[in-house]
């Protein structure tokens, strides 16, 4: 039996070589200047440009993930209340694709649809006389990225929230009604409080996802918007001059942001009341 534990060896070695050691490599070279230990790179990250990049990335990620979380909650709620099996399946498959596997093609789809000569842009101009470009909409700027981010953050929010929302017992809602309460009171007093941990966790994950998004912003905006992942990418691509140390420092800061927001997710999962034994599960006791 002991011998079986050898099966763990390759995978831990793999994780060590391809994740942990490289991550520590980033840490160590972010702290290594020309004369040993140095905080030069970190000091550089506090200059105006990088400070702005963090600010823009945070703001973009926060606004888009908050909206996606709220909208995703509403959608998950609606999905649970319809009994259309086939539709639910199709939506699940579509959401999962958009949320996890669409990346570049989705960005391209946005350019084809909402770019300056995109299909929808032209359609709106010609038939509805709405000129979204003149109204300030620009795929390569904050407004465009915001819409594009929503297109994968919303389905992600739906997927993350559905299990929690569908484990709300229908009896809670019905009990509310027989006790004299309205649907909105049910939302306010039961549904939202019970789902709050799950919503916060989802928000954490959405924020991390948005904060680390590279493909979408690279394809849509490239260098015309100042975002942390784009800047890190440029350090590697070396379109300008290779500055790996600065990239390492930025990466460390990004990893801290991601770590904090993702820990919300794991923490919130523990707090969830939904898994406490109540109601239907009492049958099993």
């Amino acid at each position: 039996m002991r011998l079986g534990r050898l099966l763990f060896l390759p995978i831990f070695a793999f994780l060590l070589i391809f994740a942990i050691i490289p991550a520590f490599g980033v840490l160590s070279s972010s702290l290594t200047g020309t004369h040993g230990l140095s905080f030069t790179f970190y000091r550089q990250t506090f200059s105006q440009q990088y400070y702005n990049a963090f600010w823009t990335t945070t703001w973009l990620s926060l606004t888009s993930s908050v909206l996606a979380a709220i909208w995703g909650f509403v959608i998950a709620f609606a999905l649970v209340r319809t009994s259309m099996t086939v539709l639910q399946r199709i939506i699940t498959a579509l959401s999962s694709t958009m949320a996890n596997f669409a990346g570049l093609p989705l960005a391209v789809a946005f350019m084809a649809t909402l770019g300056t000569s995109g299909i929808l842009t032209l359609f709106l101009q010609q038939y509805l006389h709405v000129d979204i470009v003149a109204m300030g909409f620009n795929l390569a700027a904050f407004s465009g990225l915001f819409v594009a981010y929503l297109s994968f953050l919303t389905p992600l929010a739906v997927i993350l929230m559905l299990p929690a929302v569908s484990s709300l017992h229908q009896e809670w809602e019905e009990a509310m009604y027989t006790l004299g309460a309205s649907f909105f009171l049910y939302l306010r007093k039961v549904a939202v409080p019970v789902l709050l941990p799950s919503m916060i966790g989802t928000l954490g994950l959405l924020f991390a996802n948005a904060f680390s998004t590279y493909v979408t912003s690279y394809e849509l905006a490239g260098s015309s918007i100042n975002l942390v992942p784009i800047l890190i990418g440029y350090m590697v691509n070396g379109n300008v001059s290779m500055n790996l140390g600065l990239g390492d420092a930025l990466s460390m800061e990004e990893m801290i942001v991601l770590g904090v927001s993702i820990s919300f997710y794991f923490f919130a999962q523990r707090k969830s009341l939904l898994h406490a034994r109540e109601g239907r599960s009492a049958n099993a006791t």
Partner: protein
Amino acid sequence: MLTIHQLNKRFDHLQAVKDFNLVMQPGEFVTLLGPSGSGKTTVLRMVAGLESPTSGSIHLGDVDVTHLTPQKRNIGLVFQSYALFPNMSAYENIAFPLHVRKQDKHTIQKRVNELLALIGLTNRKDHLPHQLSGGERQRVALARALSFHPPLLLLDEPLSALDAKVRQSLRITLKEIQRTLGVTTLMVTHDQEEALELSDRIVVMAKGAVEQVGTAMDIYYAPQTAFTEGFIGETNPITAEVLDVIASPIGEKIYNLRWHHHVFSWLADRHIEPQGTSITIGIRPESFHFLPVGGHGSIEATIVDKLFFGSVTRFIVKLPDHTTVKVDAMSAISQQYPIGAKVGLLITDPRLPIGFVDEAVTMTANPS
């Protein structure tokens, strides 16, 4: 109090409830009893307003509530799964409907504490539902449904998720609370013992339709349909000859029947069969009694098997024509009747006053 008239409910292709009628008196405890899928819950949900009937009407007092939303019906409902709000303590759960009704703080506090005392959970009032045991949750759910003084209380299999001991003690609690508050109660169950013990009247349902309505005694001793007879307890179908029909002091019709030379009295419930015909009735195992062989006109029978059930023992007894019947007797006396022993068997109708039993026995003692 509650009047349900010709209630029907269809789900797509399924007729879940068919021509359901029921009139409940104030303070009455009525039980819907039936196998799984017989439409009990659906009836209850329609009364509560959670499901809208396909046709028919529901009146609460003089008010037609058929199309009212559940909020406006003011009916207390206890769910099978309790449906306590998981984010609220026991106290808050019970107080919730009072908050909805915008009662003042002091009234709420007084009422909730009163109910907590009634269900014996004063010291647990700040626990969340998942910190309570099944039986405690059940009592909180009951208190919550009663807190706003609903004129009608609906219970959907309130005890089915609990283990046997707790169920037993909660039955008593439930009955006491119902009696104390005098609240009209409609309960759903598929546990016949529960129904027989708690109810003033029982509605037996099968396949969405009412099979029989009656008191526990009626349902038990005088099942009117084969379904009811088979569903509730055990029976021995016997075919007996009608010797005579007489009237009791309170005007009931009573048969004198003969079966294997044994003559006994039996309350006539269905339309009366004329003298000289044969009828088939279901005899409960405990309606048989043992006597010494040859005693008082009893049938001579042989004990072929004994099954120990705890407080009662079931005897399989062979009759002169080699058919068998099931007979229950208190285990305390079962020692007197070993397997193979010969006994005298007779039937008494437990619904009849003692006098009638005696009369029948006396009659047979002097065979004509």
